[in-house]
C-alpha cells in the first residue's frame, strides 16, 4: 500500500479502538498513547486490526517502532512492499 492508503487503514483501526476520538486531528509525530489516550492493550488491538486489513503479520518485536502515526504508516508501507518483518 502507499502512504495514503496506509494512513487511511490506520485511522480506520484507531476509530474502531477509540471511537470517541478523531485520529485526523492528532499530531502525526506524537505518541499515540498521549494523543489518543491509548494503552498497550489498545495498541495491540490496533495492530491486530491492521494485520487483518492488510494481510500481514506484525511481530511484537516491531511494535515499539510504531509509536506514532508517521512511524506506523512508514512501517506499513515498508512491510506491504514485501520487506521482511
Amino acid at each position: 500500500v502507499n502512504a495514503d492508503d496506509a494512513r487511511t487503514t490506520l485511522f480506520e483501526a484507531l476509530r474502531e479502538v477509540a471511537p470517541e476520538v478523531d485520529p485526523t486531528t492528532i499530531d502525526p509525530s506524537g505518541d499515540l498513547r498521549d494523543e489518543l489516550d491509548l494503552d498497550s492493550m489498545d495498541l495491540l488491538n490496533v495492530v491486530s486490526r491492521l494485520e487483518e486489513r492488510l494481510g500481514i503479520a506484525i511481530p511484537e518485536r516491531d511494535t515499539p517502532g510504531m509509536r506514532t502515526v508517521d512511524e506506523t504508516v512508514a512501517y506499513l508501507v515498508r512491510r506491504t512492499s514485501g520487506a521482511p518483518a
Partner: protein
Amino acid sequence: VTVVLRACRPPPRVASEDLQVLSTDERRRAASIRHPAARTRFVTGRALLRRLVARVQGTLAADIRLAAEPWGRPWLPDHPGLAISCSGTRGLVVAGVATAVSGLGVDVERTDRWPLPPDERWCSARELAWLDHCPDEDTKRVSAIVLWTGKEATAKARGVGLRSPLRSLEVDPGGVPVRLLGTRQARTGHVIAVAVAPPDVAATVAWHAAGAAGHKAPITVTTLG
C-alpha cells in the same frame, strides 16, 4: 514491596500540588501530552510515585531524581537498590516500590473494557484452555483482562516491556499461591497486578481484583520463566 493507589481527578483538572513535585522535564512532558486524560494520568502517576519513594527514603518528593530506560521504565539513579513501577488506567493510577528485588512491575486495568480477543498472539495454550473453561462470557472477558494485567506486570518486572512475546510470559491462574504483594482495596472495577523479579526467578506475580465479576480478591498466582 509497597503499592499505593490513587484515583485520578476527572480531566482536565491537574492538581497543582502534583505539578509542584514534578521535575522540569516531567512538567515539559506533561505539557506535550495533548489528551487531557492522558496528561492528568501522567501527572498523577508521577506525583504518586515520587511521594511513595520520598516516604520510603525520607526525602522530599520534588528532590527525587527519576530517569527512564529507553522503552520508558522509570528508575532511580540515586537509589539503585530500589525498584519502582507505576501504571495508570481510566480513573486510577498505581505506583509501587520494592527493595531486594531485581525488578518490580505493577499494572492496572479497568474490568469494564473489552479485552483483546484471547488468541495465540498473546496467550499460551494453557492460558487459552483456562479461559475456555470459564463458565460464561463475562467471566471469560474479565479473566482475559486479569491475564493481560499479570503479563504486563511480569514484563515490567523482568525489564523486557512488551518487546518479549506475550505468549512466553505465561501466567498460570492455577499455579502455586504466593503471598499477595501489598495492595489495598482498589476502586470497584479494577484489576491490579504486582510482579517482582527476584534475582534467581524470572518473575512472580500476584494480583488483586477489586469488584471484578467472577474473581474474589485476592487471587494469587505464579508465572513461569
